[in-house]
């Protein structure tokens, strides 16, 4: 087939796939609703949810994780575009990370030395390391669906921010259940869970996002 013939065929195909942004809204919002419902149904929200929402150190968990989700989602949308790999700036992620580490440091200083170990390990850190990745599956998958509609030329980076976005949101949802309000606990374990999910996403991304 000659190239001119191919052009004729392409020009006759006006079907335009949905823009990545549309896919994002259609995928991410329902998947977050589903995992929130699942947490409520299976684990139950923390009984003192209303009070915790007025406790800054507790609200900070949701704010940090949610902000990470939003920032990473923006970056993923940029990376979904072919020319995005040259334009994307990853420093907003560093700001979120610095805020989390600052909080960790503050908690380290203000927690009495003998209480630190208990505060850091709590009783539930293994549970948290298992449940956050599980809750991340749906939102991370919907981020990947967005990237597949797009045309990323930096798959590993795109996969990493997709992982950050999905697991960031999942962690914000998980925080509705989890009663651990000490940053020594949540920055450490939430952070490790998010990092694990994101590194895994970055690893599989080159295969999944190839086009």
């Amino acid at each position, binding site marked *: 087939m000659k190239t001119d013939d191919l052009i004729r065929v*392409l020009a006759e195909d006006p*079907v335009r796939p949905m823009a990545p942004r549309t896919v994002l809204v259609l995928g991410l919002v329902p998947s977050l609703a589903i995992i929130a419902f699942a947490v409520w149904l299976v684990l139950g929200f923390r009984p003192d949810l209303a009070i915790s929402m007025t406790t800054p150190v507790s609200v900070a968990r949701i704010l940090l994780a949610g902000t990470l989700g939003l920032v990473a989602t923006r970056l993923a949308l940029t990376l979904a575009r072919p*020319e995005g790999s*040259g334009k994307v700036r990853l420093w907003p992620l560093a700001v979120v990370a610095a805020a989390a580490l600052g909080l960790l440091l503050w908690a380290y200083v203000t927690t009495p030395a003998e209480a630190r170990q208990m505060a850091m390990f709590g009783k539930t850190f293994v549970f948290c390391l298992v449940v956050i990745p599980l809750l991340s599956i749906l939102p991370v998958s919907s981020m990947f669906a967005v990237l597949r509609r797009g045309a990323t030329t930096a798959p590993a980076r795109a996969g990493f921010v997709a992982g950050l976005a999905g697991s960031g949101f999942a962690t914000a949802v998980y925080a509705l259940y989890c009663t651990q309000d000490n940053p020594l606990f949540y920055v450490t374990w939430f952070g490790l869970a998010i990092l694990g999910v994101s590194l895994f996403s970055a690893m599989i991304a080159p295969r999944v996002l190839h086009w």
Partner: protein
Amino acid sequence: MTGQTDGWGQLLAAANAGDARAYARFLQAITPILRGVVRAKGGGLGAAACEDVLQEVLLAVHLKRHTWAPDAPVRPWLYAITRYKVVDAFRARGRKVDLPIEDFADVLAADAGPDPTEAADMEKMIGMLDGRSAEIVRKIGLEGVGVAETGRALAMSEGAVRVALHRALKTLAVLRERHVK
């Protein structure tokens, strides 16, 4: 951003809004430039193989045209797709090529020549489509008939032809991916 003197932005915007003629003109306008890039990188492969790679790039541009944001300049977008696909296509043919990160800097536009090369791969891939899809693609491409007429000839509704055509093009992209390697 300085204005785009070549008008690609207007053509692509019109195309994405559903203007098939503007879209054909856009594809015709970018083809010599893309061919220039491909030949500059893979001249040693021969004209027919270069045309294969070019068609692969065009198909990718087609299937990813919704990723262009109307407020963004066309060239960096198009170049990013071209770069990704050219590197990929040559890798699949056992060749490593490097494309500079910059834009289409010193590309010499290349015409197909007086006797446009028949690219072989696409024909092979069309042969792997199911019979009806292959017929639709061939009718439109080789006979130059529109979707409506193709529908009449095959006793299909215009909408059904459009859907089948779009599916066929997506399948072609996947088939090329799989079979060139």
